[in-house]
């Protein structure tokens, strides 16, 4: 039923697109996503994969071509990262707003400047309000399975929204892991041919997304919010049905670890959650009843799950790999907002791993222990921050200029 593959997450994502029988791929290469689309074009040129590859001139056009393909009634796929995602931002709103099902893989990479190709979650978190469903993976197997499931979710008639499957740059995109790949006929049993609620039709011409006046606009936005809400159930059902047919399961909106008797809980997204798992083991061996929640679906946000699981715990530590400048950790703000009034837990926030900085389980364990013992402030901390003279690059580089201009 399955065959075993040792591959990078990028190539695994390409396999997922192939198994989902995508009909159009439009993409523009960007580090660290490039191998996804290289592998897809190789499938087309060497392995007879029946798919139209559109080599567009920019990410803005990549998303425009995706919109065109989905509006013409075919299954579309793309992959991007970081600045590529930012460049398509306007069209992300379009794809979701006119309700087109499609799936895009985003390899989470830091935003410039400073120019940085390594991992953090700033790119997709900045696109969280576009109406796209966002699933974050923490293993190669999950990339494969989530991408296939994403088409089911996206094309569910109660949802009809685009889905973004996100995974960490380099930590996943370029590392090799073992993956069990299901046979095409098995995937076909799980994923029916493309279906949607509308497509362009010569016999019934219309303009979609045209002018709408203040009296009706809110209803359109509310409908998107309702679709996100519907997706909560659909994501769960897809995960469960996938387990029944294919055999793999990675949690639904959240994935949990050692939560049963946990009083202190780490909440994380992506590969940091795998690191935190080790920290949880470490803390448990020191006698602290700790557990872990990994948020898989960031949009829709797992509101009920978090309220339910965090209502009676004492400590909540949220690990963020992105910043909303002016408030702090993004996931932290949201977790705190969601459990407000339902939980008396002390809440803590670590911002770590920006721009690919290594995050060690030892740090997570150390800060968790400090939080449990009341030695950490209930606010956002940057555990790896070390502003030294070495980091004052601007001062070193600009001193001469500042003197000349009278700044100093």
């Amino acid at each position, binding site marked *: 039923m399955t065959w075993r593959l040792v591959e990078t997450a990028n190539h695994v994502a390409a396999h997922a697109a192939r198994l989902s029988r995508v009909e159009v791929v439009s993409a523009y290469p960007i580090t660290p996503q490039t191998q996804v689309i290289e592998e897809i074009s190789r499938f087309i040129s060497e392995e007879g994969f029946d798919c139209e590859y559109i080599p567009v001139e920019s990410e803005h056009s990549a998303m425009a071509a995706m919109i065109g393909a989905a509006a013409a009634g075919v299954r579309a796929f793309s992959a991007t990262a970081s600045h590529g995602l930012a460049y398509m931002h306007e069209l992300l709103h379009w794809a979701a707003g006119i309700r087109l099902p499609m799936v895009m893989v985003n390899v989470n990479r830091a935003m410039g400047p400073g120019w940085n190709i390594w991992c953090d979650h700033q790119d997709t978190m900045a696109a969280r309000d576009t109406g796209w469903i966002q699933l974050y993976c923490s293993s190669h197997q999950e990339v494969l399975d989530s991408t296939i499931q994403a088409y089911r979710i996206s094309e569910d008639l109660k949802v009809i929204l685009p889905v973004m499957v996100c995974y960490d740059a380099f930590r996943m995109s370029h590392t090799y892991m073992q993956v069990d790949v299901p046979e095409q006929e098995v995937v076909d049993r799980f994923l029916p041919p493309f279906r949607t609620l509308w497509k362009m039709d010569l016999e019934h*011409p219309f303009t979609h997304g045209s002018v*709408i006046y203040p009296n009706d606009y809110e209803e*359109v936005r509310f*409908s998107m919010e309702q*679709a996100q809400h519907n997706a909560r159930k659909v994501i769960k059902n897809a995960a469960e049905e996938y387990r029944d047919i294919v055999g793999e399961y990675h949690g639904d909106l959240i994935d949990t670890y050692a939560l049963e008797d946990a009083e202190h809980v780490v909440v994380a997204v992506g590969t940091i959650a795998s690191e935190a798992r080790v920290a949880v083991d470490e803390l448990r061996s020191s006698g602290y009843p700790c557990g872990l929640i990994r948020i898989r679906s960031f949009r829709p946000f797992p509101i009920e799950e978090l309220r339910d699981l965090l209502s009676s715990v004492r400590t909540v530590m949220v690990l963020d790999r992105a910043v909303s400048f002016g408030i702090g950790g993004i996931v932290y703000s949201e977790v705190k907002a969601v459990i407000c009034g339902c939980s008396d837990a002390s809440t803590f926030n670590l911002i770590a791993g920006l721009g690919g900085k290594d995050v060690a389980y030892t740090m997570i364990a150390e800060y968790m222990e400090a939080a449990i013992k009341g030695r950490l402030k209930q606010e956002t901390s940057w555990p790896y921050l070390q502003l030294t003279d070495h980091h004052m690059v601007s001062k070193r580089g600009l001193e001469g200029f500042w003197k000349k201009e009278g700044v100093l």
Partner: protein
Amino acid sequence: MPQKKQKKKEGEEIGFVTTLSVPLEGSVGLTGSWRIFIPVKDEEKCNNCLLCWIYCPEACISKDIEINFDYCKGCGICAEECPRKAITMVKEEKQE
């Protein structure tokens, strides 16, 4: 026009609220009132090549090259495209 297929009941109904406009004559009113210059056809020069019919963005030139002045905005594309210069744009005197 907004399509409202959904009922209040959450999570059960299929469909979504969106904005669709279906092509319909005069759906945005009498756009001819926007006109400043009016196309005037010279019957002698016209050889019925129909380029004006093809190019008119408002589809208000018929195949008999009759211009529907209810919707002609006076954009002048027909005059620009006419290879025989059979259409000229003339400042229109507005009737009060």
